[in-house]
């Protein structure tokens, strides 16, 4: 059977792309094609931008309280369609249904925070800055923004930006992942049901050429990106060269430091969840476990024993704890890293390559995989694998652990497990990573806080979510008045 070609959502209408070029999406449980993603043309990008630009004036004049009401309606529809959206994400991406539910919860949470725009868009003022002269700052929407989003969180990542932009009075275009576009497309169906005015929210499918057309379009004011570091750098530099504001949330190689004073029993589940949750395909996933001193042997034994018991299978089966990776291509790339680790002399103490899932023999599965005796200079210790692969490094002390973290070019997340407040304070003070966990395996910020990043993990100044998002999506204007 011929798979359906996805449609764009422009100016409140679902429209077929005129592009003859498409890419296939695949079912991670079979590897078979599911849908075709059109590679939208620059003209179609122009149509989306034109629709967003045309809608902007009326939308910015819509009272902020009314815009907030749209957010409340959106939340209501999302709650009603919660299971449907979670199921779509799980099926397309492969993540477990619980992980998909967690993603949808976070997606809704961003809508709830964005509904605070009436308060967050308040400016400030001072009377009598000079005799009879008053000065104020007002916050205003900017125009048309866009987001280029990844496959691993097809609902949550677009909504780290879109609800804030729209609640602030901007109009928006999302270019979803070409690997997992269905969850994002369902969000637009939900927004249609929530009755956003035509042109306020738009979606255009595509790949590199589509993105470049957005980045160079004179009527696009700014771009938000989440994905790999090379693409993020291209987006940031192209956007900047065209006078746009940009935020690029990029790659990661996150370390989990285990101090000898941390309770092993309580820490093992947190480490497993961090490394193997979402099959390791998230920017906050732990990748390297730095075991300090005597904790190394007992921790290693417990990690291997517990990871070997993780049930791998189809994400919609509620008994399953880890789903497949997203595509066979991703599977091959991750297998390549495992081969590389063996080649470099790391010791493979849990081999996930041969994991068998009877119900889905052609699925893109890789079981939990653990390398021991990893050294900081190895490729598997420096590059982002983006799969369920853990590397264990035995380090002598806290200082050695911090030196390894510092040597890694990325700075997305880092976690410390300890019962000692001094180590915790030192860790959060000195480690250059945007999201720090203390006795937390996945330091994913609540939507009221920004999702941060440092070093090669982030380009820009303001992040998605929280106060940063309100600032990114507004201009500040100073007004000085004298009436006397």
């Amino acid at each position, binding site marked *: 059977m011929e798979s359906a070609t996805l449609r764009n959502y422009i100016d409140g209408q679902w429209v077929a792309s005129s592009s003859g070029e498409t890419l296939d999406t695949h079912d991670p449980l079979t590897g078979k094609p599911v849908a075709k993603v059109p590679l939208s043309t620059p003209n179609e990008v122009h149509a989306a931008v034109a629709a967003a630009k045309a809608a902007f004036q009326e939308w910015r004049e819509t009272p902020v309280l009314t815009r907030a009401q749209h957010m409340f309606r959106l939340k209501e529809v999302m*709650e009603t369609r*919660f*299971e449907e959206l979670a199921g779509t994400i799980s099926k397309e991406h492969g993540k*477990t*249904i*619980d*992980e998909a*539910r*967690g*993603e*949808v*919860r*976070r997606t809704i949470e961003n809508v709830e925070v964005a509904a605070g725009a009436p308060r967050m868009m308040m400016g400030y003022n001072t009377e009598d800055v000079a005799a009879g002269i008053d000065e104020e700052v007002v916050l205003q929407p900017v125009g048309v923004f866009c987001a280029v989003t990844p496959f691993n969180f097809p609902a949550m990542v677009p909504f780290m930006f879109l609800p804030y932009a729209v609640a602030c009075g901007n109009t928006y275009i999302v270019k979803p992942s070409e690997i997992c576009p269905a969850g994002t497309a369902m969000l637009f169906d939900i927004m249609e049901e929530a009755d956003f005015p035509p042109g306020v929210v738009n979606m255009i499918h595509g790949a590199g050429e589509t993105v470049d057309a957005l980045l160079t379009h004179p009527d696009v004011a700014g771009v938000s990106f989440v994905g790999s570091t090379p693409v993020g750098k291209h987006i940031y530099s192209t956007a900047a060269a065209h006078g746009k504001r940009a935020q690029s949330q990029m790659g990661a190689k996150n370390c989990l430091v285990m101090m000898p004073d941390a309770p092993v029993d309580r820490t093992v*589940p*947190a480490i*497993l*969840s961090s490394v193997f*949750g979402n099959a390791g395909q998230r920017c906050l996933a732990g990748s390297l476990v730095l075991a300090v001193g005597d904790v190394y042997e007992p921790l290693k034994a417990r990690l291997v024993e*517990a990871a070997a*018991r*993780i*049930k791998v299978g189809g994400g919609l089966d*509620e*008994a*399953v*704890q880890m789903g497949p990776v997203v595509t066979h291509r991703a599977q091959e790339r991750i297998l390549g890293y495992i081969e590389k680790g063996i080649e470099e002399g790391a010791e493979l103490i849990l081999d996930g390559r041969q994991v068998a899932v009877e119900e889905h023999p052609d699925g893109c599965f890789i079981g939990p995989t653990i390398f021991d005796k990893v050294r900081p200079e190895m490729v598997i210790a420096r590059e982002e694998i983006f799969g369920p692969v853990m590397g264990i490094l035995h380090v002598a002390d806290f200082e050695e652990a911090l030196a390894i973290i510092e040597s890694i070019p990325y700075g997305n997340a880092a976690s410390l497990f300890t019962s000692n407040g001094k180590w915790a304070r030192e860790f959060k003070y000195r480690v250059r990573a945007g999201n720090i966990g203390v006795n*937390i*395996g*996945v*330091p*994913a910020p609540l939507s009221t806080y920004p999702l941060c990043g440092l070093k090669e993990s982030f380009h820009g100044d303001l992040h998605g979510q929280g106060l940063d998002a309100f600032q990114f999506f507004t201009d500040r204007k100073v007004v000085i008045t004298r009436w006397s």
Partner: protein
Amino acid sequence: MDLGSFGAILRFAIELEEQVIALYETSAREDNIFSRLIQDGKKRTQRLERARREGVVEMVLEPITGFDSDAYSVKPVAGSNENELDLLRMAVMIEDTMIRFYRDAADKMPVLGVARLLQRLADENKRRKAQLADEVGN
């Protein structure tokens, strides 16, 4: 079935409530204890569904071990619900099973708010069991 995840526990709890409602429906009459327990069960199911939607966040999706649904079956024994007294006696046992399940589930649940809900449901089952036992005595 291995209840190894947040969703698996809540799904089993919802199914348990639905099974119990279906069983009690066979003896429900206006204003008898079973019709009250059915109304109560529908509210409990909604609370569990809400907990499943609202309680799960990424940072607490940690594996759960050593918890299996086989220990909490509420399937009726053949011939145990032939008259109302039999059904009342069976219901006492069902409520007892639910008390056990919700207490054990509360211990296993890594999300504090949901663990508290499960404990509250166990407490409610305790009251329900006492009411049913009173009916048996009458």
